[in-house]
């Protein structure tokens, strides 16, 4: 358990300008985003992103801060969402302002988590992972049996506009939903951050790193885990409520292992050791998903490869890699890194593009309809039966790999020097 990167901790209490800055910046960014990206599809993507961020942050309360690997976290989001959709279909919905609905989802996510957590948090590690998997599959399987609540195969849908107008806003358009989601994103992110700074949040870190020592200090590691688990359930429920408001439909898909697995992917990609890691992960993943899925059919192959590569080579995730660069920047030695990075990473990117080109060619050659040989890749149209594109991509891949390989030691060397105060040789 110790191996998960430790959360960056500073012990100075109180609110200083410095610690409030990132939050003020995020709030301003959230307000300004729709003015920068005005198209409807951009706002849809941003809504999706915001929901994923809340969900991923809630997941990281378990994985990153509590050391609990869950394979069934989608269940809490799903159940919260289902409750919200049901409320949308009731008479009473006319007297509830829509912005309060996610709170209800949160409460129900929390209730479910407090029941499941009662027996699942006794142990961390593999036991917890297995129980979470079992409960997740169980509830996902129940969705086709308990039709009254889960709506069976077609799910449950509602209409958010029947809610009580909130200061005259009826949430007819995407942009109004965006601001609702962004508001909840900011509130829940702040609450989760503050939770990680409370004694109970700190104890969660302690229990993650060494449950035995935490027990000797007089804490029950089980109840510390239980508290994190219930809190994570609450925020997952909020994400579910936001999902219900945004999409107005919930199905079995919101509960199953695929969704639970993808949130693990998002969180790990972003980095579990840093608070803002899941935020990075959610943004990158959503962008990858939308951009790549427009460009290629086999985008999930790339995402899978990226995930495995992250686990193998950068277990601290994207945010962890970013954080590594704080030291050189503070030392002022970051200039040493610029050139080595360019001469190593540019060939590496060329190599990856070449490889993906070969993969696309192969995929097209194997799976397209017979007789159709024309394909477009990197804005160039050609026939996959021609030899030239194969050669071009193969050369790109090999040369890129060779150059990156050749320059990698130089980059490592520069990295070591940049992390020394005076930037001297070894």
């Amino acid at each position, binding site marked *: 358990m110790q*191996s998960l990167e430790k959360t960056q901790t500073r012990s100075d209490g109180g609110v200083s300008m410095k610690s409030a800055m990132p939050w003020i910046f995020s709030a301003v960014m959230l307000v300004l985003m729709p003015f920068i990206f005005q198209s409807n599809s951009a706002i849809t993507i941003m809504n999706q992103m915001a929901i994923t961020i809340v969900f991923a942050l809630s997941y990281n309360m378990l994985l990153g801060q509590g050391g609990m690997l869950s394979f069934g976290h989608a269940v809490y989001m799903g159940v919260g969402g289902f409750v919200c959709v049901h409320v949308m279909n009731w008479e009473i919905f006319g007297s509830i302002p829509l912005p309060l609905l996610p709170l209800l989802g949160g409460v129900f996510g929390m209730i479910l988590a407090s029941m499941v957590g009662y027996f699942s948090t006794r142990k961390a590690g593999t036991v917890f992972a297995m*129980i979470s998997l079992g409960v997740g599959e169980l509830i996902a399987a129940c969705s086709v*049996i308990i039709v009254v609540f889960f709506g069976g195969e077609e799910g449950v849908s509602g209409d958010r506009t029947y809610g009580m107008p909130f200061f005259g806003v009826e949430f007819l358009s995407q942009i109004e939903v965006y601001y609702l989601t962004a508001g909840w994103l900011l509130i829940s992110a702040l609450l989760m951050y503050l939770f990680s700074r409370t004694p109970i949040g700190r104890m969660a870190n302690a229990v993650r790193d060494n449950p035995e020592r935490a027990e000797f200090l007089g804490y029950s590691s089980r109840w510390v885990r239980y508290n994190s688990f219930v809190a994570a359930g609450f925020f997952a429920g909020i994400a579910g409520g936001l999902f219900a408001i945004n999409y107005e439909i919930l199905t079995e898909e919101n509960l199953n292992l695929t969704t639970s697995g993808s949130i693990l992917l998002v969180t790990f990609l972003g980095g579990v050791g840093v608070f803002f890691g899941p935020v990075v992960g959610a943004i990158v993943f959503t962008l990858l998903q939308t951009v790549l899925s427009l460009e290629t059919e086999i985008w999930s*192959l790339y995402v899978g490869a990226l995930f*495995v590569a992250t*686990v193998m080579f950068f*277990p601290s995730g994207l945010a962890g890699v970013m954080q590594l660069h704080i030291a050189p920047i503070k030392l002022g030695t970051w200039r040493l890194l610029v050139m080595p990075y360019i001469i190593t990473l540019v060939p590496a990117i060329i190599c990856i593009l070449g490889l993906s080109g070969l993969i696309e060619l192969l995929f097209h050659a*194997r799976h397209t309809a017979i007789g159709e040989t024309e394909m477009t890749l990197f804005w160039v149209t050609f026939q996959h039966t021609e030899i030239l594109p194969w050669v071009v991509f193969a050369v790109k891949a090999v040369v890129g790999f060779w150059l990156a390989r050749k320059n990698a030691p130089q980059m490592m060397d520069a990295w070591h020097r940049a992390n020394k105060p005076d930037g001297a040789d070894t």
Partner: protein
Amino acid sequence: MDLILVNLIDGLVTGLLLFMLSAGLTLIFSMMGVLNFAHASFYMLGAYFAYQISIYLGFWMGLLIAPLLVGIVGAAVERYGLRRVHQYGHVPELIFTFGLALLIEELVKFIWGNDQIPYQIPEILEGAAFSISSYDIPAYKVFMIFLSLGIFAGLLFVMTRTRVGMIIQAALSYPRTVEALGHNVPLVFMGVFGVGTALAGVAGVIAGPVLSTFPGMAFVLGSIVFVTIVIGGLGSLGGALVAALIIGWMTTFAKAYNIRMEDILTGVGFTKPEPIWDSAWADLWTLTSPQIADILPYLLMILILVFRPYGLFGKRDV
């Protein structure tokens, strides 16, 4: 009575198939402490490899070669992937195998496409072996039973009677001591991982034609295999066998006999609300055992983990 016998055979086939998968998984776990989420993916690879080979060389060569290939892939995964991630701890290892499962599924889709492939049982095993009153028992099922039993016997022999088995058993409990005695424990690990995945490959080769070979087949069986070894007790081969058989029979019988909740509730003395589809309890009243057959194993696992975290035959905590 005849129906019971037929279902017993059906359940036995399912159970033995599950056992072949869980045997490798439980061995790998007890040795390396890692639950291999991608285990069922190797099962899928077995089926696909065998299909590809059977096109050129026929079913029997597929049965022979495909598990070997799967074992080599498995050993390579251990050597170049898992060993690297091992230094970060158990949770990243679990995450790695989870990612691997995703990746293998995507690779299979990439190579063989999204649709089911026409992987067939060999002609010689088509048709019925014998019949119990009016129920025909396919020859292929009998073949599956004997093959799995043969593998189980072989595994038991290797593990208890040979020198290699002794070293493996020793490395299971005291890896450091075994290493100090001069054995190459990482090599043993790689070997066990390879053999474990090869077993999964065998299961894939023989299950592919009957359970259909498609990219989701790993996903369908994946979590049930976990459930099996958790119920049986992690690291216990005998436990895996018992749990696999329990699950096999449990699901088969639940599917074969349509036990309706309606009958139970009326029997206990409740009256059925009319009309049923307006009642809030409609789902409870219309519940039937085939509906819940697939979730019974999960229910059992949760109960086991809550009341007996060691599993049925496990000696150590999960």
